[in-house]
């Protein structure tokens, strides 16, 4: 299972990083090096990020519903991703501030050789981490809405950088399910998808059989459903490790250049350090200057090494911050959008609305909400107006398979029956009028209005003035208009 593997990888990386943090801490104590101490805190921030991701993964394993959380805990991974992304942005912010301070007040590096060695060790660990998590680099795979089917091959689908063993495992399972579905009777209530593998294992055909699934649930989609939820979380971890790796690179490069290019002030000579301002506040270099001041008779003056070396560190840090922010921002956006209950970007609400309305027997649709729980799990609710209850069950099946085709598999559709054609646009069953501020989204109950007003405001007025309708969400009042939309949408 992909989840188990993520778990192991995270634990492994966590132990390594924590161990290295301890090592760096000890070394910094021994050598009294401040740079080492600050690098160790970078490692600690990595540890924190990994812990957050691990907690999220552990939580998200429990996808079943409980009375405390009726959706299971799968969203924990999205939250973990957001927290990590914000954490990383904040760290970038503090690094930025430190770099600015360094520009105003440059420091020399003490004992650069030790720094080089420890920096290299840190870099190795980070490279290992990058290697462990690289499969989740780049954009998340969010193709939940596609309707195309894939054949029965178990090889990688081009452009996906996932480890092969993972893929072949899941693809075998999915194939077995495909076969079982084909042979199953439609009345699949009480039938768990997972165990279908167990009871149908004797009818699993060979891998090469191409299966066209009913309703276009593709192999791709199924593989992704279990992976894309974890995708965001792992991306957050990857970005943290990347940030740390870049930091280590900077530390090593800086220390190397410092060792070879910088000529420091030695205690015995009279030495002037032109890079620091005269009223130096940094006590680190006062001890190198003060013997020079005492020894005024000596005429030899030497200068400390090229000044640009001192500004190399903050400059590289700035570049690193820019790179990190650029890569973190998409993750931040994506996880924020999921948590904000927005319509998933694969779904075109207007089109879907039009198509739903055009189904036979559907008079009107309102309170349509589609949102993403996590990964490819989309949830939709709608109120549908129909003629009468006897025709409803038919319509319900059609609506269900319509949503299925769109990639939405968890739906709740509320039927409303109204013989009165003129009130087709209104909800038959609203809560009391004083509950208006407590609704998920205020709807306008004035019958003359054409707009489906969905308001997220906290105003106290319960019967607010008619809201201006937003793009493409006109609720039409006559059935004739419904036909018209149908025509338009099919064009």
């Amino acid at each position, binding site marked *: 299972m992909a989840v188990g593997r993520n778990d192991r990888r995270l634990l492994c990386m966590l132990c390594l990083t924590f161990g290295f943090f301890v090592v760096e801490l000890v070394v910094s104590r021994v050598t009294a090096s401040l740079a080492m101490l600050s690098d160790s805190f970078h490692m600690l921030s990595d540890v924190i990020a990994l812990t957050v991701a691990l907690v999220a993964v552990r939580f998200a394993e429990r996808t079943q519903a409980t009375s405390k959380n009726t959706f299971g805990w799968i969203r924990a991974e999205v939250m973990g991703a957001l927290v990590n992304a914000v954490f990383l942005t904040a760290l970038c912010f503090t690094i930025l501030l430190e770099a600015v301070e360094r520009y105003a007040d440059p420091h020399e590096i003490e004992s650069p050789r030790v720094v080089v060695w420890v920096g290299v060790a840190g870099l190795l660990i980070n490279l290992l981490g990058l290697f462990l998590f690289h499969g989740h680099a780049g954009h998340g795979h969010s193709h939940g809405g596609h309707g195309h089917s894939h054949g029965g091959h178990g090889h990688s689908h081009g452009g996906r950088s996932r480890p092969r063993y993972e893929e072949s495992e899941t693809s075998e399972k999915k194939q077995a399910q495909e076969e079982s579905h084909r042979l199953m009777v439609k009345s699949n209530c009480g039938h768990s*998808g997972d165990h279908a593998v167990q009871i149908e294992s004797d009818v699993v055909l060979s891998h090469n059989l191409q299966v066209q699934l009913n309703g276009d649930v593709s192999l791709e989609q199924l593989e992704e459903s279990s992976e894309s939820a974890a995708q965001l979380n792992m991306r957050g971890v990857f970005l943290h490790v990347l940030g740390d790796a870049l930091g280590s690179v900077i530390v090593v490069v800086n220390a190397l250049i410092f060792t070879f290019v910088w000529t420091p002030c030695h205690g015995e000579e009279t030495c002037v350090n032109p890079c620091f301002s005269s009223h130096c506040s940094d006590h680190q270099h006062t001890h190198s200057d003060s013997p020079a001041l005492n020894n005024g008779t000596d005429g030899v003056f030497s200068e400390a090494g090229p000044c640009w070396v001192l500004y190399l560190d903050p400059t590289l840090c700035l570049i690193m911050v820019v790179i990190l922010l650029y890569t973190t921002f998409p993750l931040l956006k994506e996880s924020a959008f999921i*948590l904000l209950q927005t319509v998933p970007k694969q779904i075109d609400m207007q089109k879907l609305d039009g198509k739903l309305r055009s189904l036979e027997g559907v008079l009107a649709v309102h309170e349509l909400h589609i949102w993403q729980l996590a990964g490819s799990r989309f949830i939709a609710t709608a109120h549908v107006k129909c003629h009468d209850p006897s025709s409803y069950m038919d319509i319900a099946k059609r609506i269900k398979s319509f949503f299925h085709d769109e990639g939405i598999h968890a739906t709740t559709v509320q039927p409303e029956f109204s013989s009165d054609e003129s009130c087709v646009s209104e909800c038959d069953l609203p809560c009391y009028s004083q509950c208006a501020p407590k609704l998920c989204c205020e709807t306008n109950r004035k019958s003359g209005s054409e707009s489906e007003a969905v308001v997220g405001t906290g105003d106290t007025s319960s019967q607010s003035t008619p809201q201006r309708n937003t793009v493409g969400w006109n609720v039409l009042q006559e059935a004739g208009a419904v036909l018209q939309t149908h025509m338009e949408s099919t064009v």
Partner: protein
Amino acid sequence: MGRYTGKTCRLIFMLVITVTFFVVEIVTGYAGNSIALVSDSFNMLSDTVSLCVGLLAARLSRRRGSQRYSFGLARAEVVGALANAAFLSALLFSISAEAVKRLSRPERIDEPLVVLVVGALGLAVNVIGLLIFQDCRCLSASARRDPATEEKVVMNGEAGSLTQPADSVKTEKTQSDSQPLNIRGVLLHVLNDALGSVVVVVASLLFYLRPLEPEAPCNWQCYVDPGLTLIMVAIIMSSAISLMKETTNILLQMTPDDLSLSTVLEEVCRLPGVISVHEVHVWELVKDRNVATLHVKVTSEFPDSQFKMLHSQIRDIFHKAGVHSVTVQLEVSEGELDSGHCTNQCTSSDCLKLSCCPLEPKPDTGGKQKQHSFSGDVAVNMENGQTTLLREQDTKQLDSNRTQSTTF
């Protein structure tokens, strides 16, 4: 949440003050060459960032629903609060890293007077900020006490006291007496800054009153600053974590704390004609705005004309429980062969992995998993006059008669 008309105004006012003071501090810091001032100004900058996040969230949450945001952006406040809390945690982490560095290599404060003055000014700015938001909370609390509701009123009362006891989450669900999460996130930042200024003032006062000779090594005075800083970090961190936990309740789509789901479901099941209830989901969009969806199974003999009545009755039950946006899917039972599970499942069993909450098969029960509700939901079946969770009932049924519709 966001019921005060002046909320955004207050945020903007606070933002203006903070930015001004940040500019003043950084200019003074560089002109007077005091690193302490420069770093304190960066505290103000982080405050500014958190205020911007808070302001953005408050603005966004007023947006109406549209094609892209079917619920509107009401959740922006909660996400903003989480972002602020995480941002604050990161800042606290780096502050504590600095403090530890200072403990291992203590430094003195060189110009205590300047630092003292600017620290005091910073403290004043932050206290003003805390007071601004505190004011409206006290006022609104007295105005909005609604005797009709059974909910308790939370009155924290003290300025800036954001550390709440563990069970306060329940009492927080009053109408609008508690601070909205977003504002709490911003206030935590301001509090952090205020306490930081307090530490700066105390430390610089110490150095001003008992100045250290330039050549003398650092004595205990040099440890005051980092020591107090670490204490401050501990205090603020506990509040930040409790704020994060509260946002977690909403963002993870958890059932509202004050709602007893099983009681509500039992009441629904007691309605005439209702056999069972499944796929029940209740969650909070934001505080006080609860959303519920459920599938209700009715007997096949249920008269069509009664549907609307049943609907209203169900809605009433939920209304009393505090949930006002309910979507009910009615399903007609298929008679005796009906296993009690959803008659309107998705078209293919493979969709189960993509449905909202599939049940993970337990490894020890093996084949018995067949009969479990694959939607994995809380469901109540009242058929035998007793309340059992559907999952348990299935196991019992399986043991007794083994007549389930899973043959192929």
